[in-house]
């Protein structure tokens, strides 16, 4: 790694070895007696989060993937706070794959579901606190004083009575010989010095001088670069191919068949790409050759009804609908969406007889290790996984397809290291898309306009079934796909949710906020329709129905207040609101919109309130809300992958449009001071923006947008 803020493991060990001692703490080790501490001076100990060198360096091993969400800062903050570390001395290193680094919320090593801080909250603080207690004990021994009379600050133990001070580096040798406390005490939040503060990100310096190493930047001696030709029809396979012309391209070394298609292996990307262009392949197009967006729409609309399996059933929605004073119904449709990470998919792998090595911008190290073992024919412990920085993740990099291609290609060319690089067109057209879905909503209102019945029937493919197989289905339902539809928070006495799990042949995957992205759009659009039918203010209408949902209510109230909800706006502007709960956090957003002279919506301002429980770094929370809003807004305005004859129609940024700086609204983020249960922050800001904008456009124009993207309708 060339990044200044990162120290390679070898460098660190050399430094530590040269000066004689390193204190190693790993809290998921079986800690008895002298366990972890005693190993410190000895050989490499990969199952550990903290290494303090005799030179006072503090190395935090980060076992989550940095894809922009800030884990390489937030996780070290947890540990450094309890350690009383000197923050300016903290360095970071990416963890190898190992059981000790499994995400406790998954049981596997991976990053997703906005889980990183929640999962690390207790273990990493305890790891820091235990190290601190050992260092204090070592100092007290040395000075022959009661350890209770010592204190710590910024990387040193201090004995105020005798005015003595020892830096942590001076104490590591002695501390390493001490037992690791099993249950160190944690600070009271009022004593926090690092947690809760907007310290700058540790990865920034490397990201402003080009030295941060992403997967696509990996260079290994003897490495080749491969570009793969894949079936344009999803699910198709190679029928025949002719590599003669491809092999004639200067720089092309090999053309090999792998399970996803034909890999052209060359000395660099450009020649590999030219080789692929020169390839002749005929495809067996398989069962999806006739699938199109029109047939998908039709199928989903047919299946979205109340005969589908029941996901939530309160009271009797049908009876309540039948006797309601008035009724409202609406259909909503949402498209497939590509992830469009800035860094196209890529992976470098080397498959040798004695072991496998993978360098990847991956969210799923355990998966990479597993597939490396399978393809390499070696036990998992013979698979090394190096996680680089990820140029965006958004769920796309939880997939293993790009890793599998690099492994298979390396194996097929006899074990040379191979880097597979996807073009932007490959990335757009061979993605696992956010599911397309179709929703039928019906509600009954009483004489005062209050909802007495809510029925939501929808059809969509299941990501969990695609990834984990049909075993995840219980009573006809995959409970992930129905989240948010089932979690509809408004107090309605009769509720029914039906879900028709519908395979469309087009692969679907985890896309930032996952199923929340479509279900909250529907819930928050429809509740707005009910408020309009009841001729009531959309914020007040929601508030009355959220009295038993205090955290939803809290963010809604805060966002409305900060957005000056109800105050006049300049002519031609209107506000809309939406609220959600996702990944245990609560977010409300108020969008302020106008229509341009071209009829295109323009979003001027977004006020966001978030309650994610205890906050590690408010600057990162704010950045994640801004980021999630841009991600969701881009999709709401223009995002759509359409399918024609089994092929994705869009291919690159000219037809899969991205929001740019000139289109960026002013985003104001307000964080609720909260000691409630902690939630994630990477994803929950995404779901509310599409309904908030569409609700604002309704307020402005009287026209409801029930099919995304918006761009087509207004």
């Amino acid at each position: 790694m060339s990044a200044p803020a990162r120290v390679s493991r070898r460098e660190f060990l050399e430094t530590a070895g040269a000066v004689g001692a390193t204190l190693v703490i790993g809290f998921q080790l079986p800690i008895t007696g002298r366990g972890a501490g005693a190993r410190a001076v000895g050989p490499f100990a990969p199952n550990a989060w903290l290494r303090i060198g005799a030179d006072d360096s503090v190395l935090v091993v980060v076992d989550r993937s940095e894809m922009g969400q800030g884990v390489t800062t937030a996780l070290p903050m947890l540990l450094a706070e309890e350690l009383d570390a000197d923050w300016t001395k903290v360095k970071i290193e990416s963890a190898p794959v190992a059981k000790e680094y499994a995400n406790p919320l998954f049981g596997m090593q991976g990053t997703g579901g906005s889980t990183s801080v929640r999962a690390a909250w207790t273990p990493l603080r305890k790891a820091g606190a235990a190290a601190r207690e050992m260092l204090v004990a070592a100092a007290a021994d040395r000075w022959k004083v009661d350890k209770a009379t010592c204190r710590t600050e910024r990387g040193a133990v201090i004995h105020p009575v005798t005015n003595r001070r020892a830096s942590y580096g001076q104490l590591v040798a002695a501390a390493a010989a001490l037992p690791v406390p099993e249950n160190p005490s944690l600070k009271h939040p009022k004593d926090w010095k690092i947690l809760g503060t907007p310290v700058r990100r540790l990865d920034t310096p490397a990201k402003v001088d080009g030295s941060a190493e992403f997967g696509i930047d990996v260079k290994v001696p003897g490495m080749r670069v491969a570009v793969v030709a894949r079936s344009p029809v999803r699910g198709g396979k190679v029928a025949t191919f002719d590599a003669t012309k491809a092999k004639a391209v200067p720089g092309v070394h090999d053309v090999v068949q792998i399970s996803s298609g034909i890999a052209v292996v060359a000395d660099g990307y450009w020649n590999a790409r030219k080789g692929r262009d020169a390839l002749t392949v005929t495809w067996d197009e398989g069962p999806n050759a006739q699938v199109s967006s029109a047939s998908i729409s039709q199928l989903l609309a047919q299946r979205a009804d109340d005969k589908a399996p029941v996901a939530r059933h309160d009271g009797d929605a049908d009876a309540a609908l039948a006797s309601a004073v008035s009724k409202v119904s609406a259909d909503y449709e949402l498209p497939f969406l590509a992830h469009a990470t800035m860094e196209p998919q890529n992976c470098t792998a080397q498959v040798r007889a004695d072991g496998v090595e993978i360098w990847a911008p991956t969210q799923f190290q355990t998966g990479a290790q597993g597939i490396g073992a399978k393809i390499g024919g070696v036990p998992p412990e013979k698979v090394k996984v190096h996680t680089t920085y990820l140029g965006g993740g958004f769920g796309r990099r939880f997939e293993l397809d790009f890793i599998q291609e690099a492994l298979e290609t390396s194996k097929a060319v006899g074990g040379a290291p191979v880097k597979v690089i996807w073009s932007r067109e490959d990335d757009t057209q061979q993605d696992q898309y956010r599911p397309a879905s179709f929703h039928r909503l019906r509600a009954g209102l009483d004489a005062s306009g209050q909802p007495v019945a809510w029925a939501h029937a929808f059809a969509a493919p299941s990501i969990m079934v695609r990834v984990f197989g049909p075993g995840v289905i219980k009573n006809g339902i995959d409970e992930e796909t129905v989240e948010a539809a089932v979690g509809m928070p408004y107090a309605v006495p009769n509720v029914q949710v039906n879900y028709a799990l519908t395979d469309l042949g087009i692969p679907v995957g985890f896309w930032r906020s996952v199923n929340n992205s479509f279900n909250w759009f529907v819930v928050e659009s429809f509740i707005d329709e009910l408020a309009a039918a009841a001729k009531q203010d959309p914020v007040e209408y929601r508030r009355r129905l959220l009295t038993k949902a205090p955290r939803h209510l809290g963010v809604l109230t805060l966002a409305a207040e900060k957005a000056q909800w109800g105050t006049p706006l300049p002519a031609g502007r209107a506000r809309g609101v939406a609220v959600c709960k996702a990944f245990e956090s609560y977010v409300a957003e108020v969008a302020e919109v106008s229509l341009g002279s071209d009829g295109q919506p323009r979003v001027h301002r977004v006020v966001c309130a978030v309650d994610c429980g205890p906050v590690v770094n408010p600057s990162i929370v704010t950045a994640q809300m801004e980021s999630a809003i841009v991600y969701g807004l881009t999709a709401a305005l223009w995002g759509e992958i359409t399918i024609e004859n089994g092929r994705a129609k869009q291919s690159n940024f000219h037809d899969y449009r991205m929001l740019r700086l000139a289109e960026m609204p002013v985003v104001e983020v307000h964080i609720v001071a909260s000691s409630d249960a902690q939630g994630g922050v990477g994803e929950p800001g995404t779901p509310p923006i599409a309904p908030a904008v569409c609700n604002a456009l309704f307020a402005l124009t009287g026209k409801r947008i029930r099919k995304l993207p918006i761009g087509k309708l207004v």
Partner: protein
Amino acid sequence: MAAISFTVNGKRETVNVTPDTPLLWVLRDTLGLTGTKFGCGIAQCGACTVHLDGVATRTCVLPVSAVANKRVTTIEGLSKNRAHAVQRAWIEEDVPQCGYCQSGQIMAVAALLAKTPHPSDAEIDAQITNICRCGTYQRIRAAIHRAAKGV
């Protein structure tokens, strides 16, 4: 294959590649300067932006033959120790998230400020069209104004 010479970050380089190879891939694969990124290959996103004789240029569609005897500056050559005002402003505002687009953003902004030291928001909107999927645009705008004030 042809030998093509140009200056990169102050150093004369001669590369022996097929002349249609985009400068981006010569920088990355031949010269090992991986700070300049591949994003789209059709000059839409700006991740591959460098300075060509001082002008911000997208290199993913620029054949290396077109830069013969010209002067190229990449993110690696923008400054020593991240000392350029734009880099300092980026650190002050904690701009990057994933960071992948930021080399291109910084090069585009450095070229803008060289020509227009105090750009208005409208000038920034018109000139800085690079894509950031993490949505760091608000901090990018703040950092541009900060850099314009000399941090």
